[in-house]
């Protein structure tokens, strides 16, 4: 009974993905901690960190898919929410360094001492408390998205216009965070973290812990997305995506639905950023670069927009490809990435998952007694 309900909730791809994530959650720590170094199945700690990074990107991809795939809002600025969450986390980690910094100031982070600042700026207050930082991880991107979305959706800025101003938003934030006067470490960003909640960030166990936390967060994000998508609200979102004016004429307050999903999505991206920062050990304004946000969109497109599992596959898959290419043949990576953009939009409008389900349908249609469903024609 429960398994049937679960299956209804996740669908086959979702169930397979959850199973895969569970396998990863068990296997990776085992391969890293228990297996001998010489073993073929042994995983280096660096590989664990890399996997953790991919998982964070997968969460970001999920958040983009939620707004783009299900509500038709193409955000070219989700990297901004990701980075804001990362900065909130980074600020806590900076405060936790305490007297172990280069200048040994108990309150001021190193870069502030370096800039001859006398006291902590007001917006750094409270970040020494872990719970406060965690609240800010979702609240900072959430409130920015809420204000931005409320303005944009109310005045019915849609389609490419919205995409362009989200890009302008992240670009403006990038310029702002590059300034030393902003009080976020300027060019260098926040780095040199020591530990989180007392656990040494360099320790193997902490890294495994963060990795497991990332898997948990990804599963939670998936469940949240799935809950939204399957609910009645999700149906309205799809209606907005496919025919916004029509939905409005029927009587739905379109902007409220959009605003809700937009804000949730931004918070999710913030969580992804917060998990990302302790694993890579740095956050700098480069994360706000518009190119990063667009790259994140292509993860979703590759996996298949409008399919949550596709976003996760895209987020992890494209980044694995990136790691491989930039290591092996760096000059080819931009060709590959650019080619991917063009190829996917031209030939795989529904991504990898869309391709798979098309194949399945064709096979079903070619069998004489198969249930052969007609492909649903959807408006882009």
């Amino acid at each position: 009974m429960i398994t049937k309900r679960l299956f209804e909730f996740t669908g086959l791809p979702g169930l397979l993905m959850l199973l895969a994530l569970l396998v990863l959650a068990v296997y990776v720590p085992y391969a890293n901690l228990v297996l001998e170094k010489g073993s073929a199945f042994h995983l280096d700690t660096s590989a664990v960190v890399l996997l953790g990074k991919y998982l964070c990107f997968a969460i970001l991809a999920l958040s983009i898919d939620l707004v783009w795939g299900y509500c038709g809002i193409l955000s070219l600025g989700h990297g901004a929410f990701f980075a804001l969450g990362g900065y909130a986390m980074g600020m806590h980690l900076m405060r936790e360094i305490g007297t172990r910094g280069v200048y040994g100031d108990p309150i001021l982070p190193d870069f502030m001492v370096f800039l001859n600042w006398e006291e902590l700026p007001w917006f750094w207050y409270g970040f020494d408390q872990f719970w406060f930082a965690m609240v800010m991880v979702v609240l900072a991107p959430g409130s920015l998205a809420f204000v931005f979305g409320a303005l944009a959706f109310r005045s019915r800025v849609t389609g490419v216009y919205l995409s362009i101003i989200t890009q302008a938003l992240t670009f403006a934030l990038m310029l702002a965070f590059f300034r030393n006067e902003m009080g976020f470490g300027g060019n260098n960003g926040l780095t040199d973290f020591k530990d989180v909640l007392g656990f040494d960030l360099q320790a193997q166990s902490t890294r495994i812990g963060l990795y497991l936390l990332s898997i948990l967060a990804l599963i939670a994000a998936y469940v949240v997305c799935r809950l939204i998508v399957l609910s009645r609200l999700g149906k309205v979102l799809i209606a907005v995506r496919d025919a916004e004016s029509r939905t409005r004429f029927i009587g739905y307050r379109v902007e409220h639905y959009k605003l809700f999903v937009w804000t949730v999505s931004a918070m999710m991206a913030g969580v992804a950023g917060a998990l990302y920062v302790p694993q890579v050990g740095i956050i700098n304004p480069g994360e706000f670069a518009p190119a990063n946000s667009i790259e994140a969109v292509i993860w979703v497109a590759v996996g298949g927009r409008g399919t949550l599992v596709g976003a996760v596959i895209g987020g992890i898959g494209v980044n694995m490809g990136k790691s491989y290419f930039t290591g092996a043949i760096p000059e080819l990576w931009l060709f590959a990435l650019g080619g991917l953009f063009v190829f996917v939009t031209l030939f795989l409008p529904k991504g990898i998952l869309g391709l798979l389900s098309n194949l399945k349908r064709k096979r079903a249609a070619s069998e004489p007694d198969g249930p052969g469903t007609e492909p649903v024609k959807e408006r882009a």
Partner: protein
Amino acid sequence: MAFGIGDLPRMISGPVGLASRLRSVTLALTFTVLLVMQAGSVQAQSNSIQELAAGLAGADFNETSRIVDQIAATGDSGAVPLLEALVAGDLYYRKSDNAIFIAERGGAGYLLTDPFSGAAAGEAGRRDVTKVRVNNSLRRDIRSALGGLTLMSTDADVRLDAASAILKSRDPEAIEALDQAIAAESDDGVKLVMERARAAAILNSDSDESTKIVAVETIAQKADQEARSILLAVAEEADGALRAAIDKAVASVEASLALWSTAQNIWYGLSLGSVLLLAAIGLAITFGVMGVINMAHGEMVMIGAYVTFLVQEVIRTQAPYLFDASLLIALPLAFVTAGLVGIAIEQGVIRFLYGRPLETLLATWGLSLILQQTVRTIFGPTNQEVGAPSWMSGAFELGGLTLTYGRVWIIVFALVTFACLVVVLRRTSLGLQMRAVTQNRRMAGSMGIRTTWTDALTFGLGSGIAGIAGVALSQIDNVSPNLGQSYIIDSFMVVVFGGVGNLWGTLVGALSLGVLNKFLEPYAGAVLGKILVLVFIILFIQKRPRGLFALKGRAVDQ
């Protein structure tokens, strides 16, 4: 020793300072004695500078000083090289015949030049020539003599330089020379500077108050930083009516300086605006008219810049004399190259994505990455050097503004490009077809317009214009594979701000954003200014989602 009593009156009334005049009188008296002693050698009285200069051979300081004064008295600017060499210590005389030469080290000992004709006069051994020695007080004399001579030069530029030099030194001894020069001056521009220099010198002298007040007014007539500093320098010591006059003059100069600085800001703003316009103008076609979100637009600009680089490379190695024309040659080539790349992109990718703007955005972003990496692979990731032709370097003054030719040309170029585009769209059959296709594709097709072909040409036109923008931007930006990236967001902002589908909106949008940016900069700094402009646009779009000049009529929405 060619020197006669007949020169004395000239010497006394000559255009030299009071002090040197007094000295001349006493020197002349002693010289009379000398003359008597050398009675046998006295020649016909002559005041030609050649003969005066001959006396420099073996002269002591006093004698040299006297001769310099006399040369100054002749007012003959032919003596300028001689005096300049003298003050620099390059003037020598040959021991064998006491002839005077400008000498510089070279050959066996010295290379000799005739100080009057400038012609080479052979070489001399190190021991064959002796330097005409000068000391510091003599150098001062020579300089003021030089000032007097150059003020009377036949070359207006030399006179202007001399007057400007006095304006800087504010030497009271130059007043009389200036008086003479002003009386003789025919060029209004030079005369103005001379009068200013005279006024500055008067303020520095011990003239009476009323003269000085007149001088203050003269100086305040042209309100620039120099006038302000001259006035502030004398304000310290002045009192009474003079002080009041100076304070008033300083206030008026400062007010007018503030006005000019506003004008300068507007100029910088227009200059930035024209750059934005250039970058956005092609996008106004592809995005504004066709509705294609071309994220590879910046790369078209980059291609144009690289075409300029290639043209200059070829010219450098093959035909250096064509360098000044390099940009003109690059323009059509950049247009064609970028246009062809644009048509290829349209035919290869974009035409399959019409009606799916978000996918177009992603695909063209991918193309931009590919184009960047291609250029990086071919030319390397570093900045390429693109030179400026001579007609684009330098600057000129307009009132209190300093305008560089490069910026002026870019503004002119942006406006001309814009005008051409408007003409193409409004007055040619291609433009007519373009507008027809974008307004109603099926109807246009029914009328016999080959819509797919028109799409390709329109996109090619937009890309080509981005290419020629690249030629202009190569002059002010680093030509690197990332060139386009820095313009893409700005370009979209301009087009969206101005109103999509409206060329005039793009023009107004670009120029007003440029000016806004430059006016924010002094208060907020360059980066914060840019951030504020971005925030302003984001908010503006909330208020007017269709831009500044939205197309009227029913919006085609779903």
